[in-house]
């Protein structure tokens, strides 16, 4: 016997004036619970780059999308259809951000399979997976690497670009500015955690021109050298994070010998190496 499945399409509307939306999720209620498929969500894992790639605004909003991912998971546990409909009605009332835009019905026949299969089919048909640039793929992996290294639990980890100003203790008071993509400092550090800072910078090897790579390499070398020269970092606490190091990159990265430790975020041993730097005695 055929059963009908009522589903709702959720769009991401970047600009309420333009009101142009991109399909990002499919919601349905069936069998006493909610069901969903949403962009970048793979079980409990969220691949941030899928949402980030929608627009510059979306890129800055990924932390909110993470909250929406949690909301979708909770919606799946809704038992009463009234509660589910109420939540969808609230989504439909939005004019920007995530908006429930249209409703449809599919017949669940024997050939169609179950609700899960129908949602997979609808998601594939309705939600176009964005093209992920190497830079976004690198960001995703970097996030996963830091999570696996559990560096967030070690102390004060600045998960965003930082500037450090070092001032010469002489009459001239020369200032040297050190820029890092991420910084771990001993402030608020817990037991067994290193008592000196660890400075991270990143270098995306894929998708960059040779000229751009040269410029980034020169900049990073200067920063790490100055960080050691000013006494802010120990040489072994200067870390350059790269992605997918290939044979052709070996020569480029050799320039960091003695200056910084080069780590490949796609290498499974990298989280362990970062952990060792943060918790040297554990």
């Amino acid at each position: 016997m055929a059963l009908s499945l009522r589903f709702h399409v959720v769009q991401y509307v970047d600009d309420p004036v333009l009101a142009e939306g991109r399909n990002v999720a499919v919601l349905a209620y069936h069998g006493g619970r909610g069901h969903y498929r949403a962009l970048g969500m793979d079980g409990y894992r969220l691949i941030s780059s899928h949402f980030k790639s929608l627009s510059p605004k979306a890129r800055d909003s990924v932390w909110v999308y993470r909250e929406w991912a949690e909301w979708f998971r909770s919606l799946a546990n809704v038992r009463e259809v009234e509660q589910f409909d109420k939540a969808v009605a609230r989504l439909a009332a939005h004019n920007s951000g995530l908006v429930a835009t249209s409703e449809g019905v599919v017949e669940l026949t024997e050939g169609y399979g179950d609700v899960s299969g129908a949602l997979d089919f609808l998601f594939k048909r309705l939600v176009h997976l964005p093209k992920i640039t190497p830079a976004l793929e690198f960001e995703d992996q970097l996030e996963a690497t830091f999570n696996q290294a559990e560096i967030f639990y070690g102390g004060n980890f600045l998960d965003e670009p930082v500037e450090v100003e070092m001032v010469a203790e002489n009459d001239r008071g020369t200032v040297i500015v050190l820029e890092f993509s991420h910084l771990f400092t001993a402030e608020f550090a817990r037991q067994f955690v290193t008592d000196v800072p660890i400075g991270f910078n990143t270098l995306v090897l894929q998708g960059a021109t040779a000229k751009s790579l040269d410029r980034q390499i020169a900049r990073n070398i200067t920063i790490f050298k100055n960080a050691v020269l000013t006494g802010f970092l120990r040489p072994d606490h200067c870390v350059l994070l790269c992605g997918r190091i290939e044979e052709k990159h070996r020569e480029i990265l050799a320039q960091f010998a003695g200056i910084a430790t080069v780590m490949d975020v796609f290498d499974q041993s990298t989280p362990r190496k970062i952990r060792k730097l943060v918790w040297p005695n554990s």
Partner: protein
Amino acid sequence: MPANYKLRSIRKKSFPGITAPVSCSLDAILKFDSAESPFCVYSELVALRLAQTFHIPVASGVLTTTSAGESYASIELGSPGLHLPDLLPLQFANAASHYADEAAALVVFDIFIGNWDRGSNVKASLVTPHLPIFQGFDHEHGLLGVESDPMMSIDRLGSQELIVKDHPFYGYVSGALVSKWAERIFQADDVMIRECCELKRPLRTVTLDMQSSLAEALCKRKLHLSQLISNNMMKIKSWP
């Protein structure tokens, strides 16, 4: 080589121009008086002023003027492209556990202003630990909006009636924290409550007399708030 530098500062990297003042626009929900909610703008504004006085976590807003006259703009929470979702009923317990003090504050505040329609009108960050957010919004069914007739609303607020029969955080908040917030409101000077309610001019259809009567009712309600909560504590507080 010994270091001859000292650390001056570690700060988030500033990009060119980011510290200079720039004009910007924020996403907001515009709310108007309507047949269903004829005193919405006044109630929203006064609820915000009271909440800010007691440090109750509610979303910020401003009075603004549109072609339909004065309206209330409730500023949306989130980032420019995406606002935070409203809490689902299944998330109430989790939110009250993450934000125990804030949830207790909101319960007491809703009882104080007679807001019987909290429902899902709460935004909270649950998986962004470095950015704690918990804010209630939508207060049109409190203050003058408790009943369809404003004078009846004022009468009910002046009585020792709970008004808020259901609340998303009933059963999830600590009795001690609820008592703490009730005490805070009790300690507030009557003058502050009057200043929140009396705008020194009529606002849309809300006259100066109505504003003053509301202030009196709230000053009276404040005196009985602890007792009112204590009488209903079994319904309000969580069980260990």
